[in-house]
């Protein structure tokens, strides 16, 4: 499967500068880029120093709300061109518009039946401008969501302003994301890509920013597979857009020694991936929830009630 990454970040936060720098790195030489620009005439793609054949421009609207179909079609065409031998790439990177909500983009990449089986969602990278980032977070909820959904947060323009307060605020919004700094777009690509859903520090997350709450649900006893399914169903159905992202390792009764790796963006989930073994000595279920206003104690109680019901049905 081809890894696909999404670079998001508010207008002027340095997405194109970052991408342009990354594409000069030999490690990313075989990268196809899909650029989405908001406005009648796209310009950002002209700033990218890469083969024209592997840079595709989506114009005329924001990726998240207008041209999602175009994104899916474009990614499909890239894959088809490669299959015909007309393009050579090992990775796809999407640069969103500054106004884009990444969630529907991720959902489209996870669910479209034409492209999803050929793609592996790698990392979501958010750029945040140290000079204007704080004010942007105050004024634009899209920027908060971009940071909340990211696996990696790249602080840009660190030469223009002190980044410490902004970095702390971003850590409260998304403590699970790795923070990096980029001066004029320079950052080590190995720190941005190949993000794993399983990262131990992810499960130490707990923070509350007023805008976004991140916490880790833990359970020492294994869960029934049906409980897990019902839990995800309840979250998807009853929490609406309050659930931003969920990742976890689940100890399942029916699969001893082989935990389920779960990953969802709002109400869209990957099917659980069954690991061959636990990645560390901790055998407990750990589910990280990034949300807007959901309560950890409520979700912990919800799991217990659902598992009680499932256990009662299993016994009777």
């Amino acid at each position, binding site marked *: 499967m081809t890894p696909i990454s999404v670079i998001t970040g508010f207008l002027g936060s340095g997405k194109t500068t970052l991408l342009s720098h990354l594409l000069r790195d030999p490690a990313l030489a075989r990268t196809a880029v899909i650029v989405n620009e908001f406005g009648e005439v796209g310009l950002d793609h002209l700033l990218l120093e890469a083969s024209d054949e592997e840079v595709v421009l989506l114009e005329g609207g924001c990726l998240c709300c207008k041209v999602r179909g175009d994104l899916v079609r474009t990614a499909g065409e890239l894959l088809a061109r490669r299959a015909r031998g007309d393009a050579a790439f090992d990775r796809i990177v999407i640069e969103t518009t500054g106004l884009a909500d990444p969630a529907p983009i991720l959902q489209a990449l996870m*669910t479209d039946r034409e492209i*999803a089986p050929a793609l*592996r969602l790698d990392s979501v990278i958010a750029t945040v401008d140290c000079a204007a980032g704080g004010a942007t977070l105050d004024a634009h909820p899209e920027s908060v969501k971009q940071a909340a959904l990211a696996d990696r947060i790249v602080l840009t323009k660190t030469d223009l302003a002190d980044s410490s307060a902004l970095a702390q605020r971003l850590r409260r919004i998304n403590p699970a994301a790795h923070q990096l700094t980029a001066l004029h777009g320079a950052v080590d690509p190995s720190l941005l890509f190949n993000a794993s859903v399983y990262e131990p520090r992810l499960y130490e997350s707990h923070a509350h920013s007023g805008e976004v709450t991140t916490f880790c649900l833990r359970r020492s006893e294994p869960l029934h597979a049906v409980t897990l399914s019902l839990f995800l169903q*309840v*979250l998807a159905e009853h929490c*609406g857009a309050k659930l931003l992202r969920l990742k976890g390792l689940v100890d399942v009764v029916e699969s001893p020694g082989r935990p389920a790796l779960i990953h969802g963006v709002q109400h869209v*989930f990957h*099917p659980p991936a069954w690991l061959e073994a636990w990645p560390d000595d901790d055998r407990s279920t750990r589910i990280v929830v990034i949300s807007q206003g959901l309560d950890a104690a409520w979700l912990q109680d919800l799991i217990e009630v659902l598992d009680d019901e499932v256990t009662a049905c299993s016994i009777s």
Partner: protein
Amino acid sequence: MSSHKTARLARVLRGALRVWGVAASVEAEAQGGEFILRAPSMTLRIVPGWLVFRDGQLLASHAGLPGLLRTLRQELAPGFANGRLIIGSSL
């Protein structure tokens, strides 16, 4: 139903109401695990099983909590933007 489980279920119901932005109270009966849910315009009585009554009339019956929550949300927060679980491609 034990008092511990009754209290936990009451917390789950209250938590769901908070998520949906519904101002309502949930009172758990000491015996039998019944719940009285008082919203501004209605009172629901929930009997383990789960049977939901409004004004003495049976409104819905469910085998499990997910169905019960669906009925409560539809009754109390019909405007809430609910979702639907979608399973995408493999990791």
